């Protein structure tokens, strides 16, 4: 009988070794989902508790990180589904047929920022300005390194939607950064025309 209670501690250690390395990633993910650190804190804590409770049920262990992300996303939808629905309505759409914008001009405009160590804050600003769903796609791919199929599972959407969000997200990121770096306020055609000659 004692064995039953004694079994808990090694199980917990094993669980922590497998999952705690993803805490930073999950927290960043929760921050994008909830939009504030208080809710992100609660969401991550609940996700870990739930993951721990279901840990022994998770038989085909192939990818803990994707499992944790999916679980966090589902928990978020269950708990905040009212708000999640509101968020989805605010998503700013970019025309899928918009011409592809090369990053060449952007990279030219960016020169100089790098030496000054300003890149990081520029990206933070540009990411924060993106609609949640596009930001999530970029985060899951470029930061967390999930493949398209895993992202589709985590975000609960078809593969085609992942590709479209990713491409729109990167385009928007490029555009915001370019507008920012060339000092042109967005949506002012005259200014935009000037920068294109640079």
């Amino acid at each position, binding site marked *: *009988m004692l064995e*039953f*209670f004694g079994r*808990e*501690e090694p*199980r*917990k250690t094993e*669980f*922590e070794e497998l999952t*705690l390395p993803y*805490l*930073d*990633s*999950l*927290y*960043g*993910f929760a*921050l*994008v989902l909830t939009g504030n*650190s208080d809710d*992100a*804190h609660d969401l*991550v*804590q609940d996700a*870990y*508790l739930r993951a*721990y*409770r*279901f840990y*022994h*049920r998770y038989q085909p262990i192939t990818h803990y990180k994707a499992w944790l992300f999916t679980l966090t996303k589902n928990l978020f939808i269950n708990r905040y589904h009212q708000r999640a629905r509101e968020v989805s309505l605010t998503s700013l759409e970019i025309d899928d047929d918009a011409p*592809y914008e*090369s*990053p*060449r001009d*952007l*990279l030219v405009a*960016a020169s100089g920022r790098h030496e000054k160590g300003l*890149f*990081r804050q*520029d*990206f*933070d600003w540009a*990411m924060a300005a993106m609609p949640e769903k596009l930001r999530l796609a*970029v*985060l899951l*791919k*470029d*930061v967390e390194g999930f*493949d*398209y199929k895993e992202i589709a599972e985590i975000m609960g959407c078809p593969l085609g939607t992942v*590709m479209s969000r*990713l*491409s729109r997200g*990167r385009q928007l*990121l*490029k555009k915001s950064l370019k507008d920012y770096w060339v000092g042109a306020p967005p949506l002012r055609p005259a200014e935009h025309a000037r920068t294109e000659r640079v």
Partner: protein
Amino acid sequence: MYDCSTVIKLLHPYLDRELDVKESVRIQTHLRECPYCREMFSAEQVFQDLVRQNVAPPPAPEFARRCVTAALSRESRRPRLQRLRGRPARIAAGAGAVAAAAALVIVLVGVFTTAVPGLVTLAVAQHRAYLDHPDSLEVTGGDVAVVAARLEERLHFKLRLPAEPVADLRLIGGRVVEDGDRRAAHLVYRLGDRQTVSLLMTPPQEVRVSGRNAIAFKNILFNPADIAGYQTLQWSDRRHTYVLVSSEPGAVYQACVICHGSGQSRDAIAGFTSGT
């Protein structure tokens, strides 16, 4: 051979290594011959590297990390079935009874496998606690409205008890069960002369079960189990999650008339009770 517009469309999947070999080779062939696209691809690659290096979210605050590990420690000290220990032991009269209840818990814990949801084990423990100490009910009496109202004073949810009287089934009473921060209603019924049936009700919650014996009926999944000699039936609807407990399987199914006492609602369960 791909043209430029096709290649540009596949730019992201290509750089993300999501294309199959055939498509990748086609892209590479095009890139070898098209300086415009080649430059575009390499600039995009540089940009994606920049994104990768610069958009990583800041690490989780140390406080969040501490909270997570503390919560996991609390959870691990509170084994899955520990919730069985608290209340029945407290209501037991003497030290002997406490020991008996503790022994029961250990026996149950030994018998149970992880496939049995905590809520069902909680229901069995409450049922046994009642059998051992019939005086432990907080409210007694057969008036459904009175019992429900008294229990609701201490519950965090509205208790929907069917008010229809059923000839061979009598409400004995009920009590509020505390399970961590959650509360459940435990109702005791007498079926016929000597069978006792317990009904545990909580707000609807997710109960994971092994599913091997589950019975799907009218869009509801019923989970029967045999736990330490007790027969249980667990299910959820929009209003509650329920667990019925009795020592006889027949009694559990007969107890469905608690909610489906007469008329149409009795017809609704005809297929279920006769088929099992």
